[in-house]
C-alpha cells in the first residue's frame, strides 16, 4: 500500500521523486517520459538541421567539413525519425489512448516501462557517438556498401543504438494492440473508438510487422561489420541490394506508423473545434486500415533506380498511386467535418487547418515520384528532400505540435498560453514553407541531396538563402514553444476536466491530470463521442458501468531500467570487441546481466496491489 500513500501523499524529496520516475509503470507518467525524451532528441535533431542549413547558406561554404556534414545529415534523419517523431507520438498514445477507451492502464505496464527505457538508452547510445568516436555517416538509410565501407565505429553506433531503440518500439506496439483489443470499457465497440485510438491501433499493427525486418537487417549489418559476416559483401557471394529491400520493407511502413497517428490527432481536433461529429467516421476507419495494408506493398518505390526491371517498377508504381485514394478520402472527410461547423480558432485548430494544404502538397509530389520514369529524374535530388519534409513536417510534426497544445491540459493540468501558441504556429508554419517549398525547385534545377556544398553561378544561391532563413523561423517558433511551456508551468493555473469545453471523448470526462487509477468507476460507453452525448443530455461526467469497487493496479518496478542497462553495456562490448580485449567480457557481462534481470522478472511474482473502495472515495471527495 506504500504506492497509494505515495501517490496521494505530500511533497517528496528529490531521491524519492527520481525513484518514482525510474520505476513508474503508470501510462500517464511514461507518456510524459516519452515527451521529455522525444522533445530532447527533437531539439538535438533541430540543432543538426540548423547546422546543415547554415552550411548551405552560401555556395562553396566551409562552415563544416564534408565528413562532418555526412554525420550531420545521418544523425538528423535518424534522430528525427526514430528518437523524436516516434517517441513523441508514443507519448500521446500512452497518455491518451487508455483514457479514450476507458481503461486504467495499458495491458502490460511493466513492458511499457521497458519499452521507454529501451528507446531512451538506444537513443543515448546512438548520440554518444558524437563524443566517443565518430557519428554514423552513411545516411539514415545506411545503404550497405557505403555503411560497410565506413571506417571508425560510427555505423556500429547506428546499428546497436537502433537495435535497442527498435526493440523498445516493438514492445510498445504489441502493448498498444493488446490494450486496445482487450481493455476497452463496456460499450466501447471497435466502431465507437475515437479516431486517435483507431490510428494508434493500425500504426501498432504496422510496428508489429515492420520492425522485425529492421531487427534482422540491422543484425546482418552488425554481423558484417563486427562479427565477420558476409551478407552484403559481393566478393564473398553477398548481395548489397538485400539491405535495401529489408530496410524499405521496414522503412515504408515506418512513414505510415508516423503519419497515421498524426491523422488521428487531427481527426480529434477537427471534430472538437468544429463542434461537429467527424464526417464519414466509418470511411475514415476503413481508409486508415487500407493505408496500413497498402503501406506494405510499396517498398520498392524507394528503389526504382536500382534496376529491378520494368515489371517490378510498374507494379510498385501502381500500388504507390493507389494509396492516394484512401488518403484523399481522409482529406475530404476532414474538409466536410469543418464544413458548416461552428469553428473556434484555437492553436490546435490552426495547426489542423495548416496541415491540410501542407500535407496535400507532400502527397501530390509523392504520387509524382510514384511514376517510375519521372522518379529517374527526381531521385536523389532536393525534390525528394522537399517531398518527405512536406509529409513528415507538414504532417507529423504539425500534428505533434497540435497535440502538445491540445492534450497539454489533460496531461499536466495547465493550459499552454494561446497567444504564445499562435506565435509558435505562425513562425513555424511560415518558416516551414519557406524552407521546403523552394527545395522542390532546387531539385528540379538539379541540386543533389546529401552533398555538403554547391558551386556558385548555378542559380541556386537565392533559394538556398531563403531556405535557411525559413529554418531560422522554425527554430524561433520552437523556442517560443519552450518559453510557453516554462511560463505555463511556472504560473501553474489549474484547469478543470474539459478545458476546451467541447471535448467529445472520454479523456475529457475525468480530472486533468487524471488520478493514477484514471476512472474511479469503469465508464459505460454509450456511443461514438460518448462524453458529447452525456453533455447533450445535461450530464456532468460519464455514466458508470460498475459500482465503486476495489481497483487492481500494477506495481512499479526498477527491473526495466536495469534490463535495458545490461543491453546498453553489452552494446559497447560488442562494438569495441574488435579493438580491445575487454570488449568480449563486457559483451558477455551485459547480456548475462540482462538475462539475470529477465530471470528475476520471471521467477518473482508480481501480482499488483488493490486500491480499496474507501481510499477511492476519499480521493474522489478530496478533489471536489
Amino acid at each position: 500500500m506504500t504506492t497509494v500513500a505515495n501517490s496521494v501523499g505530500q511533497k517528496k524529496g528529490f531521491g524519492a521523486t527520481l525513484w518514482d520516475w525510474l520505476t513508474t509503470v503508470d501510462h500517464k507518467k511514461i507518456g510524459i517520459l516519452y515527451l521529455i525524451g522525444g522533445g530532447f532528441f527533437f531539439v538535438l535533431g533541430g540543432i543538426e538541421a540548423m547546422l546543415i542549413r547554415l552550411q548551405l547558406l552560401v555556395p562553396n561554404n566551409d562552415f563544416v567539413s564534408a565528413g562532418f556534414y555526412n554525420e550531420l545529415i545521418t544523425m538528423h534523419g535518424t534522430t528525427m525519425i526514430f528518437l523524436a517523431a516516434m517517441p513523441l507520438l508514443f507519448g500521446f498514445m500512452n497518455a491518451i489512448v487508455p483514457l479514450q477507451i476507458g481503461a486504467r492502464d495499458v495491458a502490460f505496464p511493466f513492458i511499457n516501462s521497458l519499452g521507454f527505457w529501451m528507446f531512451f538508452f538506444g537513443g543515448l547510445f546512438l548520440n554518444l557517438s558524437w563524443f566517443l568516436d565518430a557519428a554514423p555517416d552513411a545516411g539514415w538509410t545506411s545503404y550497405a556498401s557505403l555503411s560497410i565501407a565506413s571506417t571508425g565505429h560510427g555505423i556500429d553506433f547506428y546499428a546497436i543504438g537502433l537495435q535497442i531503440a527498435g526493440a523498445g518500439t516493438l514492445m510498445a506496439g504489441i502493448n498498444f494492440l493488446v490494450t486496445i483489443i482487450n481493455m476497452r470499457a463496456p460499450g466501447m465497440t471497435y466502431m465507437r473508438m475515437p479516431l486517435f485510438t483507431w490510428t494508434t491501433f493500425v500504426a501498432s499493427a504496422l510496428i508489429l510487422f515492420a520492425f522485425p525486418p529492421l531487427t534482422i537487417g540491422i543484425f546482418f549489418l552488425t554481423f558484417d561489420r563486427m562479427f565477420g559476416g558476409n551478407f552484403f559483401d559481393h566478393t564473398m557471394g553477398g548481395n548489397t541490394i538485400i539491405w535495401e529491400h529489408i530496410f524499405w520493407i521496414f522503412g515504408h511502413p515506418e512513414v505510415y506508423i508516423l503519419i497515421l497517428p498524426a491523422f488521428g490527432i487531427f481527426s480529434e481536433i477537427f471534430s472538437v473545434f468544429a463542434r461537429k461529429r467527424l464526417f464519414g467516421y466509418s470511411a475514415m476507419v476503413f481508409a486508415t486500415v487500407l493505408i496500413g495494408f497498402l503501406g506494405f506493398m510499396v517498398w520498392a518505390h524507394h528503389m526504382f533506380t536500382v534496376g529491378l526491371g520494368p515489371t517490378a517498377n510498374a507494379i510498385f508504381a501502381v500500388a504507390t498511386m493507389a494509396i492516394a485514394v484512401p488518403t484523399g478520402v481522409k482529406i475530404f472527410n476532414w474538409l466536410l467535418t469543418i464544413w458548416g461547423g461552428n469553428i473556434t480558432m484555437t492553436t490546435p485548430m490552426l495547426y489542423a487547418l495548416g496541415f491540410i494544404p501542407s500535407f496535400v502538397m507532400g502527397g501530390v509530389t509523392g504520387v509524382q515520384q510514384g511514376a517510375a520514369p519521372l522518379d529517374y529524374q527526381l531521385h536523389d535530388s532536393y525534390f525528394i528532400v522537399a517531398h518527405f519534409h512536406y509529409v513528415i513536417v507538414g504532417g507529423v510534426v504539425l500534428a505533434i505540435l497540435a497535440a502538445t497544445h491540445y492534450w497539454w491540459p489533460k496531461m499536466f493540468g495547465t493550459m499552454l498560453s494561446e497567444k504564445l501558441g499562435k506565435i509558435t504556429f505562425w513562425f513555424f508554419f511560415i518558416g516551414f514553407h519557406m524552407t521546403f517549398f523552394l527545395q522542390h525547385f532546387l531539385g528540379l534545377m538539379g541540386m543533389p541531396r546529401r552533398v555538403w556544398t554547391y558551386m556558385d553561378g548555378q542559380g541556386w544561391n537565392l533559394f538556398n538563402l531563403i531556405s535557411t532563413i525559413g529554418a531560422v523561423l522554425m527554430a524561433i517558433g520552437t523556442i517560443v514553444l519552450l518559453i510557453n511551456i516554462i511560463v505555463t508551468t511556472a504560473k501553474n493555473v489549474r484547469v478543470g476536466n474539459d478545458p476546451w469545453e467541447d471535448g467529445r471523448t472520454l479523456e475529457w470526462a475525468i480530472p486533468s491530470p487524471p488520478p493514477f487509477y484514471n476512472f474511479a468507476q469503469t465508464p459505460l460507453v454509450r456511443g461514438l463521442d460518448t462524453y458529447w452525448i452525456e453533455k447533450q443530455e445535461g450530464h456532468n461526467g460519464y455514466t458508470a458501468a460498475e459500482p465503486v469497487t476495489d481497483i487492481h493496479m500494477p506495481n512499479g518496478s526498477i527491473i526495466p531500467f536495469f534490463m535495458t542497462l545490461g543491453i546498453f553495456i553489452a552494446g559497447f562490448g560488442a562494438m569495441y570487441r574488435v579493438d580491445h580485449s575487454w570488449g568480449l567480457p563486457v559483451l558477455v557481462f551485459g547480456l548475462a546481466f540482462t538475462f539475470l534481470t529477465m530471470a528475476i522478472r520471471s521467477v518473482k511474482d508480481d501480482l499488483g496491489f488493490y486500491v480499496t473502495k474507501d481510499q477511492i472515495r476519499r480521493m474522489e471527495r478530496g478533489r471536489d
Partner: protein
Amino acid sequence: MDLNTKFTPQSWPDHPETATMEAKNKFVGFWLFLGGETVLFATLFATYLALKNSVPDGNEFRTETLFELPLVFVMTMLLLTSSLTSVYAMYHMKNYNFKQMQLWLAITGFLGLGFLALEVYEFNHYIHLGFTFSNSAFSSAFYTLVGTHGLHVALGLVWLTLLILRNAKRGLNLYNATKYYTFSLYWHFIDVVWVFIFTVVYLMGVVG
C-alpha cells in the same frame, strides 16, 4: 489476484490460461509476439534463399555436399516429439493434474536438449570442415537462420527450467497457468519454424 485459492479438478476453469484479465492480455500479447516472430523468420528465410549456395570463387561448400539428412532427420523427430509431449502437458494442465504436467514438460525439455546437443554437434562438425560463419555469404545466412532458431530453442529451455523449478512446490494456479500455456505456444512455434528449416534448408538443399 489471490494465489491461495485452492482448486479441485472440478472447480478448475475450462480455460485457465485466459481466466483473468492479466491472463487474457498475456494470451493475446503472446500470439501477437509470435506474429512478429513469424515476420522475423520470414526475413531470415528470404535472405537465406537469396544467398543459398552463393559463395566466392574457389569455395567448395554447397548444400549438396554439406548436409546429411540422417542427422537432421533425428533432430526433426526429437523436436516434433517434444511438441507432442508439450501437448500432453497442456492436457494435464487443463485437467489440473500438476504432477503429470511437470513430468511431461520435463520430457519436453529433455527432448529439446537432445535436439540442441545435436545442433551443436552439427555446427561443430561444419566448423571443423572449414565451413565457418565467415566462410561465404551462404555460410553467414545459414548460420544466422538456423542459429536464430537454435537460440530460440535454448532460450525456451531456460524458460521451461525456470517455470518447472519455480512452481515445483506450489502447484498450479491461475497466475502460472498462463505462463505454462504461453510456453507451450512458444514451443509449438519453434517446432513449426523447424519444419520450414528442415524443408527449405535441408531437404531442398540436398534434393531440390
